[in-house]
């Protein structure tokens, strides 16, 4: 009897699954954001969320749960019911750097079912315009002449920006003084005001200051030049081997979410990211949309996490 019942129940579950994903979504979808409103993860969620609502007629609620090194939102996202109604918008740091910084984590990459990459924000290595440093070579020469005496600002300890700094230092045999700030805006202000000679910033926060003649961009930190400012050279083209980093975001569902729902989300999000008006909105902030499959995202995170772990260990980076 019990066997029959089990068979019937599991049969029903099997039957219910495709039906459930066909009608999905039937209620509001929540996107957890581990950061305060205004950051790229938040804005990306709101742009994509608005379009998902248009497509599916269900409201998308963006929930900011900042803090605790993103543990709070990421932990909640990992443990949420795997029904496709609670998603998480993470940044590369949350899935590839944080795990290398902390021994105990409330989540791991395998807790998630990857939906796809969303946006890619290039970063730049910028110098104050009143300093004598015009190129990366100038700066490296300066760092070799006075090891550890050149200050480089970043939005915080353990940020992807700091990774770029330590990665560059490791690969060129130089030393810098890392000055962490509370976020990108204060770091940009400190660089524009001349408190520090260098900072590694999002290209969107450096751009206006470059136009105003306060800052000079020495290099972009990705492997390829930015689509929006092709005139800026890459670090690699200026002799800094291997360094390739940008600040990208990704959308996740909890592990165990029915494949049909993950696929439906992936397809719709990729479609949204290819829309001209969506691209334009992201481009306004100097950000590219990068639609991908879940498998591509999975491979990218695993590769990046390995690279980051090596740098974190060699440079002895501490969390923030």
């Amino acid at each position, binding site marked *: 009897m019990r066997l029959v019942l089990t068979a019937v129940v599991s049969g029903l579950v099997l039957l219910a699954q495709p039906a459930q994903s066909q009608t999905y979504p039937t209620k509001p979808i929540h996107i957890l954001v581990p950061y305060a409103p205004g*950051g790229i993860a938040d804005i990306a969620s*709101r742009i994509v969320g608005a379009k998902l609502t248009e497509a599916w007629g269900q409201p998308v609620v963006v929930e900011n749960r900042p803090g605790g090194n993103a543990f*709070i939102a990421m*932990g909640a996202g990992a443990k949420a019911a795997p029904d496709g109604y609670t998603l998480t918008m993470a940044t590369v740091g949350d899935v590839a750097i944080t795990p290398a910084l902390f021994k105990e984590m409330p989540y791991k990459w395998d807790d998630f079912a990857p939906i796809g990459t969303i946006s890619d924000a290039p970063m730049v290595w910028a110098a104050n315009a009143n300093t004598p440093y015009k190129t990366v070579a100038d700066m490296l020469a300066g760092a070799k002449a006075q090891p550890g005496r050149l200050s480089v600002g970043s939005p915080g*300890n353990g940020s992807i920006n700091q990774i770029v700094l330590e990665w560059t230092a490791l690969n060129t045999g130089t030393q810098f003084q890392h000055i962490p700030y509370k976020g990108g805006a204060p770091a*940009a202000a400190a660089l*524009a005001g001349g408190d520090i000679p260098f900072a590694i910033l999002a290209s969107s926060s450096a751009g206006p200051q470059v136009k105003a003649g306060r800052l000079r961009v020495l290099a972009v930190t990705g492997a390829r030049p930015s689509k929006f400012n092709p005139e800026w050279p890459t670090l690699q083209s200026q002799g800094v081997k291997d360094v390739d980093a940008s600040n990208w975001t990704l959308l996740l569902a909890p592990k165990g979410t029915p494949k049909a729902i993950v696929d439906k989300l992936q397809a719709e999000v990729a479609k949204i990211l290819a829309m001209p008006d969506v691209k334009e909105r992201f481009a306004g*902030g*100097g950000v590219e949309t990068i639609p991908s499959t879940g498998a591509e995202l999975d491979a990218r995170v695993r590769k990046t996490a390995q690279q980051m772990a090596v740098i974190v260990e060699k440079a002895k980076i501490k*969390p923030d």
Partner: protein
Amino acid sequence: METLGNLAFGLGVALTWQHLIYCFVGCFLGTLVGVLPGIGPVATVAMLLPFTFGLGPAPALIMLAGIYYGAQYGGSTTAILVNIPGESSSVITTLDGHQMARRGRAGPALGIAAIGSFIAGCIATLVVAFFAPPLAELALKFGPAEYFSLMVFGLIAAVVLARGSVIKAIAMVCFGILLGLVGTDVNSGTIRFGFGQPELTDGIGFVALAMAFFGITDVVANLEHKDKSDVYGERLGRVLPSWEDMRVSFWSIMRGTALGSILGILPGGGALLASFAAYMFEKKIAKPPRTFGEGDIRGVAAPESANNAGAQTSFIPMLTLGIPSNPTMALMIGALMIQGIAPGPQVMTERPELFWGLVASMWVGNLMLLVLNLPLIGLWVKLLAVPYRLLYPAIFVFCCIGVFTVDAKIFDIYMLAGLSAVAYVLFKLDCEPAPLILGFILGPMMEEQMRRAMMINFGDVTIFLSRPISAAFLIAAAVMMLLIALPALRAKREVAMQE
């Protein structure tokens, strides 16, 4: 003259029907979220962000800006009526504002807050129009050394805030600094006093602290009184400030506006510092009879003018440099970027309709807020007629909702409960919360800036004295310390002489 022409052009932009409507919507929503505990301007702006996609950049910015300075107006309402500061910059308003309400002068307190804010808003708008670029340069001159010295000055001035014992005030400042140290150290990344709780890695929330020390403690303290009658009900008093009130407060409003306009341009806590500075300044120089701490109308007029002036001038770094001075501004920059505009120095020349339209709309918005708020005062004051047995539970519930909605964390409510117990003990010991709050906010900033200054200058301490602005603040702090110490010293000597 050119600026006047630009302002006229801006008014032309701001006075179109579409922009007037968005300005009104922004101001109205702002007042609403300012009064309702729990939903702050940041959450409101974030929720409205997708809605602005379809608008042009000018209406979007005008509406979002309206929410921001509208919330500053609304925040003081709860501070005065029920002793709950909605925003950090209205903490200081509770000191005399709530005392006025208890003495049946809630109407004049709310009225002077609205009128002072309006006058401050008008003047600060002109400051933005005429002096934005040079003031932005001044803001950039503030490096870590300058910030550190400003904080030292602020903390020493906090002692002046105390009504009673100087020693207790110093103790409270120190306790505030200790509470502020909980969380992750920006410079080293070390977590202090975290006890393994991820919720504590970002420190103790300001809203929980403010509600525990002001709203909840106030209610608990009132429960001690045997007299359970509807106290405020019988003494509602007049609704608007009298001409005498206006005359007494006029120069306080002017001084508050001046301080607010200057301090507002500093990114990070400018408006808050402004409200504290204005109050302390007033307390020192106001003509007798002085009843600060017991419901002096000047103690409401000055900080309220200062925080509103500061709210207006904090747009300067954003508009001229593209640097947001607080989270709400960061969101507005996000909204502009989505519209394809990179906020920065070029906005003024490339998109004059945006810059001047916004500046002019601030003035229009301030007028709307005055018109919106003055008639509401009568309604707010009637709220005080609600019996205690209904009002008190409501305050408790609103405090809990307010604390919860900041980050949607249950943990913060436990924190509120714990802090309330501490706050009550301190209240019984006659220790005042205002110096504690100032220590809580300024202490960690001071540490962060000092260590950053040291790191950038490789441990050279003379940096604090060799930079002129920094040196000036340190000297002013030293003078103030002497002023505090002198009366005590003199008293001691007199005692010694008599013997």
